[in-house]
């Protein structure tokens, strides 16, 4: 098997960088694990340790209301040496997951689905990065590195999503659905990605075969696979935990009802702290509807680029999820470089990137002022999360604009590069 030298170099450099950071700054992983930007109640490594402790002592891990993650993580992490004795294996484990993610990204990038799909092919095909460059963007993104050292369990969700996409673009729809089932099982929200993912699979399938199968039938088949994979995982979980409703309410119920309002980089916590209890259910519904509402609209409007819909949805989830963390951002930023050809069409990149930079620096500062120095208050940090979300929204919206413009220029090649105004 020929070894790709560049790929090897990038991968080993990424692992070495992570190990170097671990050895030079031994306190960094624990510091990052404690940061609200990295750890949320549904992905925190510390809470996982608590669940693991209870699990290995044959107590229900959901006792005590600290642990809210999927039960299958417990036997998986129980295989690793205890973090109290050895910290290195954990870091190596997470670095390997990052490498796997990068590998999936290379598959996605090399498939060229972002540039040429079944229904759409951009006129800027020559402006693109190859797979290794995109993998490097992912592996050397500071958010990815911070996530790796902070060890939240959401990287497994990211991994499952990336594998679902990479299987979809290589035409393996059953595997894609299985991976999406795993992602949904771990974090619930990836289930919303089903629609664009199945369209991606369908497009890939239809390109290969001469007679395009019926969309509805194809969708139903895949939905069956997806349901089966989720059901299978839930069944295994039931075998592990015993009390089905206990773990469902502690994990999915927790994610849906958002009872823990620990500050995070999202927009929910402050709102639900401020709101009167009588309106809580109503606004929970509204917030979830808002989050789910993007799926239909984007899938329909950008039907020709399902991979772009997936990317944009991941960006939107990273903003509007109940418990977002920077691992969600790193997933969005992993897929965004696939759309290098849209950058010339984007208008606010500098502004959005500056807003994100400012928020990245000011967020921890204001959190420090609020929590440690005591000279600020919650509004400081919340204001920065607003700026952060604003920067991300601008990025997402701007990339969507660019994608639409790209589609439009494909239809009207003579209008390329000209000023256009909506009438």
């Amino acid at each position, binding site marked *: 098997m020929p070894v790709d030298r560049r790929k090897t170099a990038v991968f080993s450099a990424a692992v070495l960088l992570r190990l170097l950071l671990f050895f030079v700054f031994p306190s960094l992983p624990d510091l990052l694990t404690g940061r609200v930007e990295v750890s949320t109640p549904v992905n925190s490594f510390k809470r996982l340790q608590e669940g693991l402790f209870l699990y290995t002592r044959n107590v229900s891990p959901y006792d005590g209301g600290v642990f809210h993650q999927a039960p299958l993580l417990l036997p998986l992490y129980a295989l690793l040496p205890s973090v109290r004795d050895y910290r290195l294996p954990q870091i190596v484990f997470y670095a390997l997951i990052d490498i796997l993610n990068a590998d999936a990204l290379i598959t996605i990038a090399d498939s060229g689905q972002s540039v040429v799909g079944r229904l759409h092919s951009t006129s800027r095909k020559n402006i693109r990065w190859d797979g290794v460059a995109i993998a490097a963007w992912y592996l050397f993104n500071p958010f990815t590195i911070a996530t790796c050292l902070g060890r939240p369990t959401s990287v497994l969700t990211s991994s499952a999503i990336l594998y679902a996409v990479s299987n979809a673009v290589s035409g393996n729809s059953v595997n894609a659905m299985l991976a999406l089932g795993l992602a949904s099982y771990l974090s619930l929200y990836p289930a919303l990605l089903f629609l664009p993912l199945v369209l991606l699979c369908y497009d890939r399938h239809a390109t290969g075969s001469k007679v395009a199968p019926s969309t509805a039938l194809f969708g139903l088949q895949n939905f069956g696979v997806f349901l089966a994979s989720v059901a299978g995982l839930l069944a295994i979980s039931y075998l592990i935990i015993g009390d089905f409703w206990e773990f469902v309410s502690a994990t999915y119920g927790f994610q849906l009802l958002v009872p823990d309002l620990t500050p995070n980089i999202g927009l929910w916590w402050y709102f639900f702290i401020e709101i009167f209890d009588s309106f809580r259910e109503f606004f929970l519904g509204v917030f979830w509807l808002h989050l789910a509402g993007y799926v239909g609209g984007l899938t329909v409007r950008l039907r020709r680029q399902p991979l772009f819909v997936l990317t944009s949805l991941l960006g939107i989830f990273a903003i509007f999820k109940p418990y977002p963390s920077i691992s969600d951002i790193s997933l969005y930023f992993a897929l965004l470089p696939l759309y290098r050809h849209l950058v*010339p069409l984007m208008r606010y990149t*500098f502004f959005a990137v*500056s807003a994100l*930079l*400012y928020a990245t*620096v*000011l967020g921890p*500062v*204001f959190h*420090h*002022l609020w929590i*440690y*120095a*005591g*000279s600020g208050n919650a509004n400081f940090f919340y204001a920065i999360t607003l700026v952060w979300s604003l920067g991300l929204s601008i990025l997402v919206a701007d990339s969507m604009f660019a994608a639409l413009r790209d589609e439009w220029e494909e239809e009207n090649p003579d209008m390329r*590069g000209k000023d256009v105004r909506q009438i």
Partner: protein
Amino acid sequence: MATPAALPPLPFNPARVRSYILRLPLFTRLVLLAIVVFWLLELQTVWAVIEWGALTPDEIGIQSMHRLNTYPFIHVGFFHALLNTVALVPLLERFEAEHGTLTSVALFMGPLSTLPGGLYLLVEKLILHRNTSVVGASVWVFLLLGSEAIRTYKSHPSFSLGTLKIPTWTSPLFACVIVWILVPNTSFLGHLCAILVGYLLGLGYLKFFNPPEKVLRWVEGKLNLLGRLPHYVSVDQKTYGRYGVLPSANNATGERGSPMSYLGSTQRLATLRNLRNNPQFLFIRLPYLLSLLCIVVGVVWLLLLPLDEYSRQTYISENALLPGQVHTYFAGSEQNVFRGYKKELEGLLPEGEARNQADLSPVISEKIQSALRAAGLKVATQNYEYTSAGITHQGQNVYAIVQAPRGDATEAIVLVATWKTVEEELNLNGVSLALTLARYFKRWSLWSKDIIFLITPDSKSGTQAWIDAYHDMHSPSVQSLPLKSGALQGGIVFEYAFDHRFETLHIIYDGVNGQLPNLDLFNTAVAIAGGQMGIGANMQEMWNHDDSYEMRLQTILRGMLKQGFGSASGAHSSFMPYHIDAITLQAKGDGWQDEMALGRTVESLCRSLNNLLEHLHQSFFFYLLMQANRFVSIGTYLPSAMLIAANFTIMAIALWLRTGYDMESSAAAAAVKLEDNKKDEATPKDKPDDAANNKAVVERQLALPLTLVVGFNLLGLAPLYLFNNLHHGHFTIAASFIALVDAVLPLSVAALLARGSAHPPIRQQYLLIKSFSLLLLGLALSALATLNFSLSFMVGLLCVPLTFVDRISCSKAPVRIAATLSGLLVLNALSPPAVLVAGCHYAGVSVESVLTHAAFGWDVWGSWTPVVVWCVWWPAWLVGCVLLGVSLF
């Protein structure tokens, strides 16, 4: 049709009248209809229409606002209605034809009825105190007359009556007077108000009431009004403009615009549009102007702060503190106890000169412990050792806890007496006072918080070791505390470093990294010292503060300098990072206050802190003090540092924009491409396409600028590591070495950039380098401003030249080289090592001692001023020098 010839011809053509009436536009018709309907309604007796709708000053209230809109439609009789209608129709028709139906409806249903009505009410009711009802459309007649008169005045300023020139705008006034005289029961005042509003309308002051044309068009388009309504005047059918003059008036001068006053804004807009179309100004000059403006305003802002208008008197926010509300009993026989303790400690000290140099020896420590134990306190000790820059600092803390008789050991106050003061003097009186107070406090039953007495060997490291260990955050070289109490609510350090009586209390309040204690604590100390004890309070070593502007400014600047350095200013500073508010009280001067007065002050402060129900939180944590009782809060002073930081960001954004459109760089890029194509003529087809693209938008080449800026920022870690890990003996050499690096490194990087590769960077890349570097600098400084305002402000000011340095592109080599060299000289004078050396020289201290202090701050106090210097300031400075240096090659 046969018309009898005998009849005299009519003075007007009936066909024209008929067609005129048939052509009346929609709104005019509606008004006519309304007037007729209201006149008909008056004929019945059930409902008094006039009483219902007339504008009666006394009847106007919130319930009867409709009167302001209905009165023009209602008339008091047939002739009234007829006359008004005849007068109104031509005027209204003309107005509607000019402005469109929708605008007319909006104006006449709204402001053109209510404004004259309101004006009339105002005068009638509030000034004349009368109550005359008015009705009738004559208000509109006079209003429109007034507006028409202004219009006429614009084209024909006056008409001549013989030799007399009468301005045309007065004509409605004449009409008004004549009507008033000739027609009975007319309201002169009402007509006058209408004329006044008409003038305003004619002059264009009311045009903001006009609905925006876009909205009108939209409404029209959506509802298809033109198609559905007969006689509708569309927005587009308007005769000319909205408030423009009639075309006939314009044709004479031959220009479209007329010299009307409200056209001035259009001219201003034109100027702005010209600026918009001038990229040279917009992208190159304007950012420099804006940046300069930011800097100037930022500095002036700071200079304004000491003025009374911008600063405030201090006040106690936390009501629980009640400073000075209790009587203090620390006096009398306690003085004998104090003398006894002092004598005992003095006995253990060496005689003569060595007395003042004596350290806290184990013997003295034993004596202190036994004294505290004898007073009935729980006593413990803690050994610690720090090594920084090759110097070992070690010692033993002694502390004792007075357990609260009325508390549950969940909260505590710390009283600290350091063996050596901040100035390294022997604090014998302070330590003796601590022992006396411990014995005294033990006997009181009113404490609701534990009181911890802490005796540390020095002011630098002792409290740090103790407070770290109190929170279990200590390093291995520091012992854990065997004895602890609850959450610390406040700390007071007191120093009394001489044997004579003192005059004033000097309060030190700066913490590590520019953190400050809650202003309430400082205020309480000032209130107790000044108000209750009659001792003056000073700060920032301002002994002769006469409350003048200069003195206030000097106090602020001293405070900022201290805050900016971010090192501990006393034993209290170590408490601040743990969110424990603390201050140091120093006895200073030669006066008539004795140690008992200091003791009473501390007692009263403890009583105030003892009252606290929650942690000090009410008052400010960010402030600049300019006098013991005057301060500015963060909202007032923060903009100055933010403006300084913003100047870098503005420049970064402008440069980014400029790289996208820069004509010069695109030409250069094209030139590079042409050269490439000459070298290998493989792709001749791309050439015209590229050239076309280059004209519009330039693709930015980010790799080199990003690498360079990130590389320089990472390079900052090297001196940071160097200065925090060297032995203190090597600091002077290291500083010289860095100064040498500063001189050589930028030039070599510049040479490498300009000459090193086959493709030297194009202008766009240089601009991008500067843009990224300034963006990071602005980002770091604005974040820093929220943490340590003073440091951000000082670094920002020192970096100001970096906004303005750029590659000098002058064709004459000698001029260019001379300019570059002088620029480099200026920049090198403002480099971190140069500023350090100059500062040390000015303050009269050695560079080595300052760097040792900085390393100690980094190692022990956790001060991150070095990070700011080496990872924010230095990289930005290097990039500036590189950009300037490139012009040499």
